[in-house]
């Protein structure tokens, strides 16, 4: 069951305007697996996500999504993969529910008119993420954290097999971080959704990720189980932090 490959990259090079930021990306995401990309700012984690998502062209290498090379800007791809970006969202005069309903795009007809089943999908997604109380609120008046959760509901209501999440917890307080990551774990376990995301909360990543990939100096440095990848020695070397200073802030690892 969990063997099915949803995402697989082969010697992928990603970057901007023909210049590679990260090369030799060989990553895979299985059904029901949560993969977390870690690494210093500017290492190219988001660039990898954007390239896999087809938002920017790849430099070289191969991407396979759900078993085949993806045809980007197609309805089929939109039903297979959803993205959550850190971009500023333009949503003038839109309620949170209307923003979430945007995720039904690949399922609606020529004019994008929502049917009963689409409204139900919107309600369900908002309930699962726990933002159903915000449905009628003006999206632009929400806090950044609330917006982030609404956008996750939007991605979910797209009913994807694979989710690409760029820092899905960056604006959330610790309570919501735990709740949201718990939801992701449930979605992965129960629905077999594959998740690849970037994150900076390593304490939390340890307990939710199946696989951790580190990105540094233009390559994917290492890949492994979170308990090995997120040990303080490795985190210190990855981010160039002095071990003693790390312990001052996070305490020596005793677990």
């Amino acid at each position, binding site marked *: 069951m969990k063997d099915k490959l949803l995402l697989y990259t082969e010697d992928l090079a990603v970057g901007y305007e023909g210049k590679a930021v990260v090369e030799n990306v060989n990553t895979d995401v299985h059904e029901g697996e949560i993969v977390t990309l870690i690494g210093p700012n500017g290492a190219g984690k988001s660039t990898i996500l954007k390239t896999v998502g087809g*938002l920017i062209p790849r430099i070289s290498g191969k991407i396979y999504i759900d078993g085949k090379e993806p045809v980007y800007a197609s309805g089929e791809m939109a039903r297979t993969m959803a993205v959550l970006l850190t971009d500023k969202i333009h*949503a003038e005069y839109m*309620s949170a529910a209307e923003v979430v309903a945007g995720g039904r795009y690949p399922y*609606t007809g020529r004019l994008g008119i929502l049917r009963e089943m689409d409204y139900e999908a919107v309600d369900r997604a908002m309930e699962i993420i726990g933002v159903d109380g915000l449905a009628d609120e003006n999206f632009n008046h929400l806090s950044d954290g609330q917006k982030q959760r609404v956008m996750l509901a939007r991605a979910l209501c797209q009913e994807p097999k694979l989710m690409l999440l760029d820092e899905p917890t960056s604006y959330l307080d610790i309570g919501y971080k735990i709740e949201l990551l718990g939801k992701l774990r449930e979605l992965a376990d129960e629905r077999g959704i594959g998740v690849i995301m970037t994150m900076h909360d390593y304490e939390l990543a340890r307990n939710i990720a199946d696989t951790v990939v580190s990105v540094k100096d233009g390559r994917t440095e290492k890949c492994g189980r979170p308990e090995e990848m997120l040990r303080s020695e490795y985190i210190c070397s990855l981010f160039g932090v002095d071990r003693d200073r790390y312990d001052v802030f996070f305490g020596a690892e005793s677990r």
Partner: protein
Amino acid sequence: MHKSRRWIYSIITLFLVIALLTVNLVSGSVHISMSEIIDAFRGAGDPVKSSIITDIRLPRVMSALILGGALAVAGYLLQTFFANPIAGPFVLGISSGAKLVVAMIMITFLSRGILLSSMALIGAAFLGSILSTILILIISKGVKNMSFLVVCGVMIGYICSSITEFVVTFADDSNIVNLHNWSMGSFSGTSNRDVAVMAIVVGITCIAVFAVSKPMSAYQMGEGYAANMGVNVRHFRVLLILLSAVLSSCVTAFAGPISFVGVAVPHIVRHIYKTNRPIVMIPASFLGGAAFCLLADLIARNLFAPTELSISSVTAVFGAPIVIWMMIGRSRKESIE
């Protein structure tokens, strides 16, 4: 949510358009009553009055209706493209670019005694629109600040207008009267043939615009999300610009540059309907633009009758304060954020 209310607003605007249309037909230097108008359409009644109605007033009100609607939709498309509500064909200098090319081509051909067809004029205006759009796109790559972009657009507009003035000044005497009227912006002097051409061009383009309202709504959220939804963003951006240019060049070819309708009307419509969704905004903006231009033309014709005002001076009086109000509102919002 507000669905039923939106229908009511649409019906009210529709009635407003019909009422303004009737008032426009009735009023003028020669008073013609309602019953005489009906006679004129049935082919009965006084032939002079009938001719005033069917050959002069009807084409004029129809062009105000069609071109007013086209301008508002063109403005809405540019606002979607730039993700900014202050964009419009006039404030970005696109109308003036179209005007310049039309004036130059008209004068060149008229001096050789060739009268241009209305399609050729639309073509010339389209060329001018595209050229000034490319210029504004190059500028917008360098600057992200929308107010600055609008200032650049207004400057481009002034440069194009002064070159047009220059060209018109040196044109043949016989051409000047017509050209001068047109370069100031006016719905007068359109024939029923012109109305047929503009109805077809604007009609087809607006249907095409409405047909892409779904990808437009995805595009409004931002390019990344639109791409994820299966929209080919690069192609779609080109399509938006082309559709907008066809509409605004059709307006410029027939009525000259008309100011501020493209910015003010979609803004009012957004405010009243409390939405920016294309599927509502496109038809509602068209109706709103039609009503706005019918009213503006009524004022232009009758306020100082028999002297006529240029249509732009009327639309500017109503439109420019709205644009100022918008810019103040935006800068407040930005300073809060």
